């Protein structure tokens, strides 16, 4: 009988562990796909270079496909990712749009000047509204958008050649074939 009492901590821990495990497997990993196969949420934002003009999601309709990349100067990983985009544009001419996320615009402009600007343009999402609509976890994130302005893929974290060949390339081929 006394021995049974000693199982009590184990039992409590077991219950907690099951709860925790269930909780984490319920985790909204589904969230990344919440916007998948949906149009880019509506926005009307200025760009880093141009204070007056306003950009809307219609820009995505001009290309067969394009990338949408969330970046900021405070984001160390974005700095790591940056050279990849520069190279990607040079080699393959992929149109990349940037969302400058919750950042200091002047610092962002300096960054582009110093590190080279691979973006067609970067819209300024200062209060993070667009990021919220997209369901951004943090920077960097990259979206693949097809010619109809539909989000086809989302990548959280740094993109490099390996990820590009594995996750992006096949989808782009499919988009080009009209899929």
């Amino acid at each position, binding site marked *: 009988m*006394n*021995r049974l009492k*000693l*199982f009590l*901590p*184990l039992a409590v*821990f*077991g219950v907690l*562990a099951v*709860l*925790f*495990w*269930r*909780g*984490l497997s*319920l*985790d*909204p*990993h589904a*969230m990344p796909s919440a916007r998948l196969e949906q149009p880019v949420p509506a926005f009307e934002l200025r760009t880093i270079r141009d204070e007056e003009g306003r950009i809307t999601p219609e820009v995505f309709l001009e290309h067969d496909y394009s990338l949408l990349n969330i970046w900021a*100067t*405070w984001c*160390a*990983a974005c*700095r*790591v990712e940056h*050279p*990849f985009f520069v*190279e990607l544009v040079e080699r393959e001419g992929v149109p990349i749009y940037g969302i400058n996320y919750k950042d*200091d615009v002047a*610092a962002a402009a*300096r*960054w582009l000047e110093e590190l080279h600007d691979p973006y067609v343009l970067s819209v300024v999402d200062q209060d993070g509204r667009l990021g919220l609509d997209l369901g951004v*976890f943090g920077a960097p994130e990259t979206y693949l958008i097809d010619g109809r302005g539909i989000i086809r893929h989302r990548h*959280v*974290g740094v993109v*490099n050649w390996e990820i590009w060949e594995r996750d992006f390339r096949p989808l782009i081929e499919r988009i080009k074939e009209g899929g």
Partner: protein
Amino acid sequence: MVPEIGHFALVVALVFSFALMCLPLLGAQVNNQMLMATGRSLSAGFFVFVTVSFACLVYAFVADDFSVSYVAGHSNTLLPVYYKVSAVWGGHEGSLLLWVMMLAGWTLAIALLSGALPRDLQARVLAVMGFISVGFLLFILLTSNPFDRLLPMAPQEGGDLNPLLQDIGLILHPPILYMGYVGFSATFAFAIAALLTGRLDSAWARWCRPWANLAWGFLTVGIALGSWWAYYELGWGGWWFWDPVENASFLPWLVGTALIHSLAVTEKRGAFKSWTLLLAIFTFSLCLLGTFLVRSGVLTSVHAFANDPERGVFILMFLLVVVGGSLTLYALRAPVVKNHPGFSWLSRETLLLGNNILLMVIMATVLVGTLYPLIADALGWGKVSVGPPYFNMFFIPLMGVLCLLMALGPSSNWKKTNPMQLVKVLWRPWVISMVIGLLFPIFYAEGYSWLAALSVFVGSWIFTSLAADMLHRMRNAKNWREGLRKLSLSYHGMIVAHAGIGVTLIGVCLNSIYADLRDVGMHPGVAVQAGNYEFTMDSVYTVQGPNYIAEEALVVVTKDGEFLREMRPQKRRYLAGGKVMTQVALAPGLLRDLYLAMGEPLDDEGAWAMRVHLKPFVRWIWLGALMMAIGAAMAVADKRYRKRKTSKAQGPSSGTNQA
């Protein structure tokens, strides 16, 4: 090349720790002396290779090897070299390596200093340490390798260490905190070994106590450093925010505190045995939880788990094995007590039991408050945050009761205490502290604060009752000097640590009652009044640091019209990441701190928003923590824990040697 050596050394260390996990344990089961003896050399090998690996990572940082992804993410050519070194533990991967490095150190220390332990017990303790190392090394190698390369395109420049971490407090805070965390792995190993051998006597408790005290002392200093850093670096003037990261380090402290007290009962009275084991398991489990959850980012958001399922699953499995495994072992092997060594309703045992229960209740409320937002988020109940009001509501009254009872403990006897004896020793301290408490608010400030009276009363009650107990124990000595010498070092340690609690308590309470916080607009040449002090901003100019540019304000402080000092708060912009940071100007003092932080420029004429704080007694908070740690160190140094027959192995750093 060097990072590959580091990586390889880590793999070799894994082999060593795997052997350490198996061979001595096997030896202990089959009673093979030679296998048991392998523990010591395997620990040494494990230590050497982890050190090599750690040195390689330090080298990669100092040499700006940005082809290593971890270095590229956390360092920068502009960083001063000491921050490059401390950037090693600025992120998840490196801090885990630091953890293992310390684990290796503690393992080696146990191997070298525990010669007096029975062979089989020592072998089992080392095997448990080996088991923990295997878990951590696998975690690093499989999911968080700090030596991963960014090839073929290594960046020219690193992403910079978060400017918040570029600070002396944060150079020291993680290693010391980890010393505490890792230290409790030693008591955990002792507990598991005791369960395996079934030997749990007062000798076991005596071996265990110095390790527990040492770990507790480190943890105390680590937490205090973190709080001190938050105070002067974050620029909000707070020193404790009940944020999940802080709580993660505070939880093991609370249970650890219960553990060191419960160990005392186990050693002296042979009671609370199973309870002590359980506390040792809990403490270490919470240390693991703290380490993993803080650095993996799960505490701030469950999404961190989703983003990195590999790490998440590994962490959960490891926790499951460690906690579940040890609790199963506990359930099967913990001694079932048939006849308690009895004690009456008023005795030191009862009081320490009360201490343990209170601490566990406090721990449970903090744990619930910390994990609830996480669980709610995971179960889709929406985003919630549990703020300071919740924590304060439970923590303050419970802690108050604990402090009131704390005074009784040292003066009571084991087994049975005569209430009259307690009254005889303690009525004077009660009256004296009552008087001090009631008078203090009258003299300290305008407007009587009953809360201040209450907190000063409780604080003084702790001090005076300790003093009364000391006097009572020395009543037969010829003079006070001889009396002091007769009291053991661990008794002195207890006095210092308990007094430290009183000091921290007074600091916390008076600081929150009397603090004067104001956000003002400062115009050049116009004085701003706060309490007795006048602050006049002289000018704002630009300063160039090694890796930042700062706006610095020169503020002249006068007290009652007389010049006191100059203060120079800064607003820094770091060149690498472009991050903006406030650098607080502090005028520290035993009775009050002056605190200045720059906000934003208000207009073109040089006016700035400025945060001006008077913080009475804020230093007491950390002073008290330091006293607790010193008290713990004194208890560790008590020669009672060293065997009479001393041998060659002497621990210079710890003095905990049972050799």
